[in-house]
């Protein structure tokens, strides 16, 4: 029962923050009207459309993005055996951002709703492909080479983004720039469906690697000695974590911090075993990004604060308090 408690608490929080997210917004739709719209029966058709077509997909999308980012970060930290690892370290975000910025600046993004996420996904996949093939030498996958390759590819794509932005026409510069800050405002039902169909199985697959990720924390040789197929686990972990990161970036842009800090917070509270850490990190990441997004779109009235700013404003103090409390004797 005690071991189940964190899951129950986080699940309850997820439902509560989800409801709060659906009820919050500039349109001033009352509690009754919102619940009526959620219930699906009658009511004001405008309120109904706002709740069901704008707020609900955004809330579910935020939860999925937060959950996937937290799982991706936890897997990267285990793979690289480095607590500073995060989903964007290895170039996925830079590749995706280049795809998206390129699509916005060239006008491809204006062709239709799926064009932007597809361009971002393509950029992310390109970065994954380059980094993966560089780090794979003679069938072995060297995580030190992986970090270096990732950081260098990241820097290269970053330079490409700067170049594209420099050459961009002024009216497109602003929307391209805001995309790189990350936002959940563009999430629609089809994106939620794609993210769920793709992110949830990837998270489950990561969870299935859980014990092997624990073993990897001991070092590659010790992991092999307890029967882990180290090369296969490293490969799967890299691909799963990168694909999760690419998927979230393609629908929501680059939202920092969730993938770095949520896994650490969960580790401090619930321990490092990955079979427990990964599901808890998913739930905690979902709750965290939901709270952050709801705050981002409500605190400053009609202006939406970039969600990445709020993740840092809410996340840093929380994490520092946790760190201090836990490291005290």
């Amino acid at each position, binding site marked *: 029962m005690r071991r189940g408690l964190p899951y129950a608490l986080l699940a309850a929080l997820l439902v509560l923050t989800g409801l709060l997210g659906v009820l919050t917004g500039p349109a001033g739709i009352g509690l009754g009207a919102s619940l009526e719209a959620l219930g699906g029966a009658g009511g004001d058709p405008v309120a109904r459309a706002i709740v069901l077509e704008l707020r609900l997909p955004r809330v579910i999308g935020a939860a999925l993005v937060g959950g996937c980012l937290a799982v991706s970060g936890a897997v990267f930290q285990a793979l690289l055996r480095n*607590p500073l690892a995060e989903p964007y370290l290895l170039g996925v975000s830079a590749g995706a951002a280049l795809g998206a910025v390129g699509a916005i600046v060239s006008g491809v993004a204006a062709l239709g709703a799926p064009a932007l996420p597809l361009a971002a996904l393509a950029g992310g996949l390109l970065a994954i492909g380059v980094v993966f093939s560089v780090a794979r030498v003679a069938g072995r996958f060297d995580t030190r080479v992986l970090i270096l390759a990732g950081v260098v590819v990241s820097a290269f794509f970053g330079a490409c983004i700067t170049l594209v932005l420099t050459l961009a026409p002024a009216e497109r510069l602003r929307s391209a720039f805001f995309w790189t800050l990350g936002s959940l405002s563009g999430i629609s039902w089809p994106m939620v469906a794609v993210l769920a169909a793709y992110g949830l199985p990837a998270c489950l697959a990561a969870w299935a*690697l859980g*014990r092997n990720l624990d073993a990897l*924390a*001991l070092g590659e040789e010790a992991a*092999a000695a*307890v*029967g882990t197929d180290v090369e296969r686990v490293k490969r799967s972990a890299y691909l799963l974590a990168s694909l999760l990161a690419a998927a979230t970036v393609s629908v929501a842009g680059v939202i920092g911090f969730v993938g770095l800090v949520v896994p650490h917070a969960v580790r401090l509270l619930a*321990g490092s075993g990955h079979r427990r850490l990964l599901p808890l990190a998913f739930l905690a990441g979902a709750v965290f990004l939901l709270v952050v997004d709801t705050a981002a779109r409500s605190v400053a009235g009609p202006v939406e604060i970039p969600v990445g700013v709020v993740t840092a404003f809410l996340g840093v103090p929380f994490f520092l308090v946790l760190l201090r409390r836990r490291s005290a004797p």
Partner: protein
Amino acid sequence: MSFVLEAVTARYPGASEPALREVSLRVPEGRHTAVLGPNGAGKSTLLRVLLGLVRPESGRVLLDGCPTGSMRRREMARRAALVAAGEEFAFPLTVRELVALGRTPHVAAWAGLDGRDRAVVEAALRDLDLEGLADRSVARLSAGEMQRVRLARALAQETSILLLDEPTAHLDLAHEVEIFERVSQLTKAQSLTVVNVTHNMNLASRYADRVLLLSAGRLTAEGTPSEVLDGARIERTFGCPVRVERRGDLGVVVLPLSRGSE
């Protein structure tokens, strides 16, 4: 169950000299075999070749008559466990979680531990007197406790072979003796086959049944401790003068002398 090496030569990628040269030996079943030799003699490489972590350049390794080259990692990990001295922890697990990793080769990757797995883990914790530490983070253990935890993990693997790579490095005298005693008790109680790479000749001679001596990648002597631990041979192999005394109850006692004294 036991290992046989047939003319094994092994080389690390990029190394000019092989780490093992034409080594042939048979690891006796149900016995404690100590592997002695100077630094760089190939002792650790021998363990890695046995476990299949280093592939021989030539020659064969057999486990119960089957070549290990084609064996999967899980299969190997159900037969032989490794206790090394220096793993680091990227993220601190609890003692129980670390010992439970010994069950890795016995359960499907996605499955949880069942009742029997948990019972094996608890028994391993009990065997090494770790029950009181079970929920502690491994980051907060002393070196001696940590080594008991590694032994417990190896026991939880339920293998009949235990490979130890300098299991008492960094341990003080009392903890070193404790590890040797526990290994020898376990060897007898569970009739394990033990291959123990160590630098402590005195404890090796007291607790081991057999001794292998490696030098520059070659197997230079093999036999009971009193056969192998001969003053002239040790001096030749290690480049250090020694006095060897034979004490019935303590086995062979090797005293290093200063280099200029004889």
